[in-house]
């Protein structure tokens, strides 16, 4: 096993553990903090998978943006202490469903065959810019539209309340 594989596994275990904790903990705040740790671990995976820019976007937007937004929302709404889990019967069923889905995904991926990854991948930054302005222009402009729509909708929602 190479060093990078070891790192991949380490990040993967951290990510899975944080995700699990974030989903299971009864403290809302800790759930959000666990999400932050999870996102950082996934950013590490992105970097290992030769997507350094995406890793930075992950840190910048997710950890520095979405997690902060969630913390704000938490602090603006609940007192953020404990919260009840759903009834235990529901929990067992959900676990079964999640197991089944996860098992299916894992089973499908173990059997699949893929071409080998290139030894030297292109540096992501200049190509990413070219892709966004060329092949993927639609995605780029569409994201602009979505962001605009998000601002308008969210502001309308928030403002509709008498504060």
């Amino acid at each position, binding site marked *: 096993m190479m060093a990078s594989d070891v790192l991949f596994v380490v990040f993967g275990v951290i990510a899975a553990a944080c995700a699990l904790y974030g989903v299971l903990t009864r403290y809302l705040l800790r759930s959000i903090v666990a999400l932050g740790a999870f996102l950082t671990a996934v950013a590490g995976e992105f970097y290992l998978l030769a997507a350094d820019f995406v890793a930075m976007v992950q840190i910048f937007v997710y950890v520095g943006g979405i997690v902060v937004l969630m913390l704000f929302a938490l602090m603006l709404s609940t007192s953020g202490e404990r919260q009840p889990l759903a009834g235990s019967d529901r929990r067992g069923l959900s676990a079964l469903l999640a197991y089944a889905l996860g098992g299916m995904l894992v089973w499908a991926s173990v059997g699949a065959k893929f071409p080998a990854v290139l030894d030297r991948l292109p540096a992501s930054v200049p190509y990413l810019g070219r892709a966004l302005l060329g092949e993927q222009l639609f995605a780029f402009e569409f994201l602009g539209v979505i962001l605009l729509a998000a*601002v308008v909708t969210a502001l309308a929602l928030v403002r509709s309340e008498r504060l």
Partner: protein
Amino acid sequence: MNEPYQSDVVFLVGFALAVVLLPLVTLLAFRWIRPTHPGGLKAQAYESGMPQASAPRRPFHMAYYTFALIFIVFDVEALLLFAIAPVLHDIGWPALAEVGGFVALVAGGLFYAWRKGVLVWR
């Protein structure tokens, strides 16, 4: 196999390890020296000498959320511009028009917020 990326990560992990461990070690090391007498008056929250008038962590001003909301949209925009900025000059005028369209779209959100009077801090 894609050496530079992986060694970057290895380096950053080592660096982060040091930066996280060092303060923790210092904190633990000085535990033997510094006094520890928990409880008493100092365990109460400091509110300029008065007893705590009201519990914190109560639901607060919505304005914080609206600003965070606009922030996140521009956050995404700025990041995309970082991907594009290095090649903008090489691609030339059509690229500029495309980027201009994108910036105009997002700036439209700011304009909307401005018109709605969201940007006033109260």
